[in-house]
């Protein structure tokens, strides 16, 4: 193939209808929105809320473009020379991310006591990070993994330090940035090891090469390098997931950053990291032939590949399962001593990251079993969890932010007796927290049920039992918050604590809490939808 032909084929692939650019329209819209926000800000400097409206409009358009036209593409489509992958998993996670961002932007506006002047920068950073996350969930190339993660992380460092005058905020940003840079360095090193041994940077090609190596026999040195590379790659992902032992930044950053930023970090960032984890974990254990140009990736029969890749699957599954178990247990135990609500939620986020890693471990362990149906269910469980977690955690942080505005405090003891003044908001908080525990009839239970099912199917009994006991552990600290709000007497002096549900913030919190209840009853449709996401991952 000569150079001109190559260029021509790339141009065709990019510009043709149904080509790469068409599949990339939501991301392009986000880019355009960022530019538009800055331009509008300069053109109409007196319009204080311009950034909000432009961002909201941009997100709506992106959402419209991201919603699947027909009922899901079964065939995964490699775009931009197969560095990115466009399949139902990408589509659904992207819709969830955009939905979250939309709700989040509204949240900052409704609750916001941030400076109006800084809002443009704030939304620019949020949308920039969102762009990186969209890349993360559709990564099919090791460089995109790095690119996406850095694009998602760097704005977050800045977001954590947005409150320039608070020492804690600066501390948070510094810790976050240093920790992030360190783990990114390790990850990059791991990537270079993997790419060096496997001779390619595109995931399916790497897996194919891995397969060939296994079939020809792997030397000890090669195995060492591969395992080392895999572990180092995992370090980077674990940092984004705030998985133990790479979680140290989370409590400090959550405490230092505003509740709004913490909400963004705990939901969007986590969802994207999980998407990436799925891409990497399944990418190395189940090669899907998405390649361009095809010469690089000789066609392999999935069934043979699955059998040959078993050692890799076992390694990946064990690594993720172990990390999930430690993360979940540690998060739940460490949350006990917390008096600051944001720190508590930070540990809760860590614990939930552990829960959400479990189905990934199960899915990898289940690859190739029963025509991949149980593995698909496991990924479906993850998507269900992400969808429900989105509402639960955003609602929790929204209520924390609302209470910060009225009480001027984020310490749990200061919530004492709030049920007398703001019964509605307290009920919302109780619903959200009990849903985080996983009690029926709330959506958190459905999410847990889905995850536990995946573990049973993978016969990971020890992890299953541990996950169950963790639910009991987590009861204490969530319940403590409710206990303080409901059972403790009100302090003698409290100026204002009334947040009626009919006010704008109250209404917003109700709107976020409602799905936490409704999704329990509407679990069937949600599950069906989530299982679609998993479908294309196991395309054969």
């Amino acid at each position, binding site marked *: 193939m000569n150079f001109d032909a190559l260029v021509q084929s790339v141009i065709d692939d990019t510009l043709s209808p149904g080509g790469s650019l068409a599949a990339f329209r939501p991301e392009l819209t986000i880019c355009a929105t960022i530019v538009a926000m800055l331009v509008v800000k300069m053109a109409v400097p007196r319009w204080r809320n311009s950034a909000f409206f432009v961002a909201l409009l941009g997100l709506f358009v992106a959402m419209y473009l991201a919603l699947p036209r027909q009922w899901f593409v079964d065939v995964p489509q490699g775009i931009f020379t197969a560095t990115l992958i466009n399949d139902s998993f990408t589509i659904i996670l992207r819709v969830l991310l955009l939905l979250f961002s939309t709700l989040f932007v509204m949240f900052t506006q409704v609750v916001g006591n941030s400076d109006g002047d800084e809002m443009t920068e704030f939304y620019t950073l949020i949308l920039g990070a969102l762009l990186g996350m969209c890349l993360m969930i559709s990564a099919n190339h090791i460089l995109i993994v790095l690119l996406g993660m850095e694009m998602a992380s760097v704005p977050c460092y800045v977001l954590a330090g947005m409150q320039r005058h608070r020492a804690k905020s600066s501390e948070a940003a510094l810790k976050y940035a240093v920790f992030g840079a360190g783990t990114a360095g390790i990850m990059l090193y791991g990537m270079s090891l993997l790419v060096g041994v496997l001779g390619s940077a595109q995931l399916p090609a790497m897996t194919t090469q891995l397969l060939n190596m296994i079939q020809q026999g792997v030397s000890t040195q090669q195995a060492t390098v591969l395992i080392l590379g895999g572990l180092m790659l995992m370090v980077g992902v674990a940092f984004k997931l705030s998985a133990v032992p790479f979680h140290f930044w989370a409590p400090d950053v959550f405490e230092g950053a505003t509740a709004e930023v913490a909400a963004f970090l705990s939901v969007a960032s986590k969802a994207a990291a999980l998407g990436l984890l799925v891409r990497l974990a399944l990418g190395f254990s189940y090669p899907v032939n998405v390649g361009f140009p095809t010469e690089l990736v000789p066609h392999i029969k999935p069934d043979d590949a699955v059998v040959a890749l078993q050692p890799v699957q076992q390694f990946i599954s064990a690594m993720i399962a172990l990390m999930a178990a430690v993360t979940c247990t540690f998060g739940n135990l460490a949350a006990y001593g917390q008096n600051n609500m944001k720190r508590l939620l930070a540990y809760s986020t860590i614990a939930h990251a552990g829960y959400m890693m479990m189905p990934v471990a199960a899915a990898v362990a289940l690859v190739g079993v*029963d025509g991949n*149906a149980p593995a698909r269910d496991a990924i479906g469980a993850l998507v269900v969890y992400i969808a429900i977690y989105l509402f639960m955690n955003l609602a929790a942080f929204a209520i924390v932010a609302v209470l910060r505005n009225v009480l001027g405090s984020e310490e749990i003891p200061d919530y004492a007796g709030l049920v007398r003044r703001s019964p509605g908001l307290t009920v919302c908080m109780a619903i959200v927290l*009990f849903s985080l525990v996983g*009690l*029926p*009839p709330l959506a958190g*239970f459905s999410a847990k*049920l889905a995850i*536990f*099912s995946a573990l*049973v*199917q993978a016969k990971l*009994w020890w992890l*299953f*039992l541990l996950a*169950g*006991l963790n*639910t*009991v552990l987590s*009861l*204490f600290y969530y*319940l403590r918050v409710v*206990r303080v709000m*409901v*059972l403790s007497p009100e302090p003698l002096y409290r100026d204002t604590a009334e947040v009626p549900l009919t006010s704008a913030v109250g209404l917003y919190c109700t709107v976020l809490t409602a799905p936490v209840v409704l999704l329990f009853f509407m*679990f*069937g449709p949600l*599950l*069906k939808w989530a*299982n679609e996401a998993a479908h294309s991952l196991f395309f054969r």
Partner: protein
Amino acid sequence: MPLFDSSNSQMLTWLLSLIIFLPSFGALVLCLAYRASDQSVRRFALLTTVAVLALTIWLAWPGTTPGHFTLGKPGMQNMVSHSWIPGFNIYYLLGVDGISMPLVLLTSFLSVLAMWASWPIVKHVRAYCILFLLLETGMLGVFLSLDFFLFYVFWEVMLLPMYFLIGVWGGPRREYAAIKFFLFTLVGSVLMLVAILMLYFSSDLRILSPSQLQASHVIVDQSDAARLISAGTQQHTFNILALSEMGQMSDSPFAKTMIWGQKLSLWAFLLLFIGFVIKLPSVPVHTWLPDAHVEAPTPISMILAGVLLKMGGYGVIRICYPICPDAGYSLAWLVCGLGTVSMVYGAFAALAQKDFKRLVAYSSVSHMGYVLLGIGAWSATAGLQYNSDYWSVGMNGAMFQMIAHGISSAGMFFLVGVIYDRVHHRNLDQFGGLFARMPTYGGISMVIFFAALGLPGLCGFIGEFFVVLGAWSYSKALAIIAASVVILTAGYILWTIQRVYLGPEYKGPHPEALVPMTRREIGIAAPLVAFAILFGVYPSVLFDYMKPSVQNTVNQMTTWTSDVKDAPAVTQEAK
């Protein structure tokens, strides 16, 4: 041919759903009624519970038309089935039989009394009533649901209202008691969830015959059965009846999977059993009960003792044994042993109490031990020539004991509440002479306390007698111990009566407050007294409902025993 015509099915759906969700609906109305006065809120809540009672009586009324209870029919009746979450094969599956019907009636009956007994509660009345009604939904749902998922959901739904009811309206150590209750129950229910999922994923509807499928309401007509049986993949189910059918097959799928060297059915039985005995409660997981009872307000104690404890026993009868007969057979010693230990321990602990309410709480532990012994006395273990009739007697006794205890313990807690409302203490050493000051109260107390003692002619006797009778053929030692516990029971009850009601005069604080029972209080106590006497002299009124279904359960177990356990013995002899 469809199993039932659609109009009947619709009527049943409405009837059973109304029974479960009418209290929730009432709670919703109360949520919106911002301006209502406390008294009208109370009246509305009472009215709601009365309406639910009326509906359950309608359902229990003997009759052969759908919506009424067909006496003598062993299996499930008045079943309702709607698909809810197809992805997990979860159904909205409801139904009653002779085991659940009396418990449903007991629940709605005690809810009315407990609501009426809530009049003295003045703190946050609206919130109290809302939580109370939500609790009632949970309780009725547990007894009516036949889908394991649904059962679990209702089981958990009771937790939160109960937590707040104890935590907000309880006594001085209410927060500790509430969290202890919550924690114990949650541990139990998480273990239960683990077991549920284990069973679900090893179940396979394809191995059942079309008639079994139809009997357990998995399918409506034969064409569905063919489609189901010829399905390519495993068809999991949460249907309790279908799971029971599978568990009782000689090559049960639950006995095939091994986990850590043991059969899955054994693990499932153990996990479920722990979950249920926590609720029952049995030694050594009973410690939440005295705290919860002592701190809970009177009406909530009534509900707790009268209904919530019964869920443990119900779970064991309805779920543990039918689904995992294998494990039940090999662990009969555990079940019976725990039952007997609870009886003895509870009775001794009751003897040692200084607090009136704590004494009643421990007596509950002791009395619920009978239930466990009666259920567990699997006479089949007595060799080849066993007679399952004894087990059936024991199980009937256990069922009867549950209802009788529901009446007597609710009564006792109410009576303790009556005196506590007047003198604000429960110290047994500071009472005395109440008979003279409050004659009506004294008379009512005698009947209720003697009913708990197990005096012949009152409701407590029948259950205990049958249980001991059933246990005799299983283990004479256990039966003798169980029979002698009656002496301990008599000890603490007579001693209590002596210390509280007899004696020359009342020497404790607030003697001026000892006014006779009000008409409301008599109105609450009278039905309890009436039923204590009625069930004592005419127990058939209950047995007519229970016996066919209990017998059916026992027969199934017996068939299973002869199929699975005796068969190898016979072949060995043949060799």
